[in-house]
């Protein structure tokens, strides 16, 4: 969709660029993705922030599978440096990390989704295709992180934020079901809405995560004694 070639039809494979500092993982992921014959083409890979930025500039892939933890700044740094020059490239964070702040940082920097490394090959292919078509993809864990981040629990500071920063009850419901391990299709059935609507809700959660203001972020950090 974003790449000119993709507009011509579904037959064009999604061009994927792998960024991970572990060669072993790259090899494994490449093998798994390439097995999904015809859907995905791995055009290149990189093991460091610098290589990644150069590689994205060179290959102009459709989707970048981005590791969160890397030396010299990690995935967030790649996003900061590559997003300005290549606004059409979609980033999907792929992490083994349990640290919500790392993941949220990548989402804030502009990644379109987040999946864990224990994801099955089929689901990963699905996630790549989905972000390529402009949707947001959350793993249950990230849904949990976001719920936690936006939680308005007693004891936390009162919320004076603009409307923009709050999750609507519906978005919260969607996130809850996501965290419970439901697929988008199952969420749609559960809430009596269309899959498209679920995707819209998830995308707007993502937008809010990126846009939520400093106040929200600092409260979130204070609650967790990060600062």
């Amino acid at each position, binding site marked *: 969709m974003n790449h000119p070639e993709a507009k011509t039809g579904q037959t064009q494979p999604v061009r994927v660029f792998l960024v991970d500092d572990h060669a072993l993982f790259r090899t494994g992921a490449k093998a798994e993705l390439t097995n999904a014959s015809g859907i995905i083409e791995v055009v290149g890979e990189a093991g460091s922030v610098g290589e990644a930025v150069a590689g994205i500039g060179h290959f102009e892939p459709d989707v970048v599978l981005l590791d969160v933890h890397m030396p010299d700044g990690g995935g967030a740094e790649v996003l900061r440096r590559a997003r300005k020059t290549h606004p059409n490239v979609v980033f999907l964070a792929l992490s083994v990390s349990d*640290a919500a702040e790392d993941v949220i940082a990548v989402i804030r920097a502009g990644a379109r989704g987040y999946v864990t490394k224990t994801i099955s090959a089929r689901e990963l292919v699905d996630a790549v295709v989905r972000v390529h078509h402009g949707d947001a993809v959350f793993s249950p864990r990230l849904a949990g992180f976001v*719920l*936690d981040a936006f939680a308005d629990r*007693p004891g936390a500071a009162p919320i004076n934020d603009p409307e923009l920063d709050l999750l609507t009850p519906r978005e919260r419901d969607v996130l809850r079901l996501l965290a*419970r391990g439901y697929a988008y299709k199952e969420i749609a059935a559960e809430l009596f809405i269309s899959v498209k609507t679920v995707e819209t809700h998830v995308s707007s959660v993502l937008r809010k995560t990126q846009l939520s203001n400093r106040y929200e972020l600092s409260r979130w950090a204070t609650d967790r004694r990060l600062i």
Partner: protein
Amino acid sequence: MSAAAGSQRTAQARRDPRTSAEATTGRTLRRRRSSRVIAGVAGGLADHLRVDVRWVRVIITLLAAVDGLGVVVYGALWAVVRQRSVDVAEPDSPRERTQAIGMVVLGFGLLVATSSFGQGLSGQLFFPASVALIGAVLVWREADETQRRRWAQGARTGVAEVFIGNGGRGAIIRSLSGAALVITGIVVLLVDSLALAPLQFALLSVIVTLIGTAVLTLPWWLRLVRDLDEERFARIRTEERAEIAAHLHDSVLQTLALIQKQAENDKEVRRLARSQERQLRTWLYGATGYGGSSRAGGADADTDAPPAEPTSAKTLAEVVSEVCGEVEDTFAIKVQQVVVGDCEVDDRVLAAVWAAREAMVNAAKHAEVGEVSVFVEIEPEQIELFVRDRGKGFDPTTVSQDRHGLADSIHGRMERHGGTVRLRTAPGEGTEVALRLPRTGDKR
């Protein structure tokens, strides 16, 4: 503290800037190394404030006219602020350099002008003071120069080397002439004050000599303190590395060896890998894990990390992750857990967790799947636990009367503690057990 929240804290600790002194170069004030005229203070300030270096120089020069305030500020910053240890190329044009030297001369001129008009320092004091000042500048600059060489060579220094280093004769001459200028300035200052009574004179000379010594040896004192700091950090880093190596040996390497031996046994390999992953995760990101606050407090007493939390009672998130791990190990399935929020554990909460455990066990035994999702949300009014699988599901009406798992362990337990159970299942559609427990009073 939930698993998520706990790990955030540890991630923060892992990135503690103090562990790498130079990682902060970009943010903290550092004197420039290259393209400096005296000590790089103005350049460093300009880099820090992100303004043109010329403005900083102009302001310092103008301040020099106000009782030499600019000179004092410059000297103080010189003494306190560290020099950048990594050379960053600065824009340095000959023209700018000429301008800067002009500024120095102008500042000095302003100082002379204001004092000779009798507004600032008195003329009598001014001459010896400026001689001592120039001497101090010479000595300190030489010390900076030595610091540079030392960084290049990575060597430690003694008292003499702080000023001279391996700079050869030139350095010795510069240092000695600097010291001579300081001493001359002091002596002239004292001779000028000869009108004083002998006792006062003696007292004054002692004080002034002490000040002179302090000025001359200041670089050495600063170096001493910094060297101690650096050494401490280096030692801590070495200890950390040793500990990580030991832990990896005990855990990952051993497990990998086991996996090699068991390579034929699919299930066993998976079980080993899973339990290892969980163990390592807890070690890395857990509340009391490797980068956790309790450790950070012990290893490095004066980091900014929050003090160690008293881990008196277990929290719900910890109990849930323990239970999930246990089920993972026992039944060789993957349990994906997400916990939102956290609270303390009491008997009622524990009962709910045990009910959830029974639901997991049921899923592991009967659903014929490799993965179970567990979602726990702690809200102000209630606690909700969901256990779901995408397995084969069943028809609740056909469960025979002699099966006690669901009836006693889940329904019975929840009802005894005032909770509710909702079961959603159908053959072929998987199973979800939703447990809901109202919270009485505020336990947060």
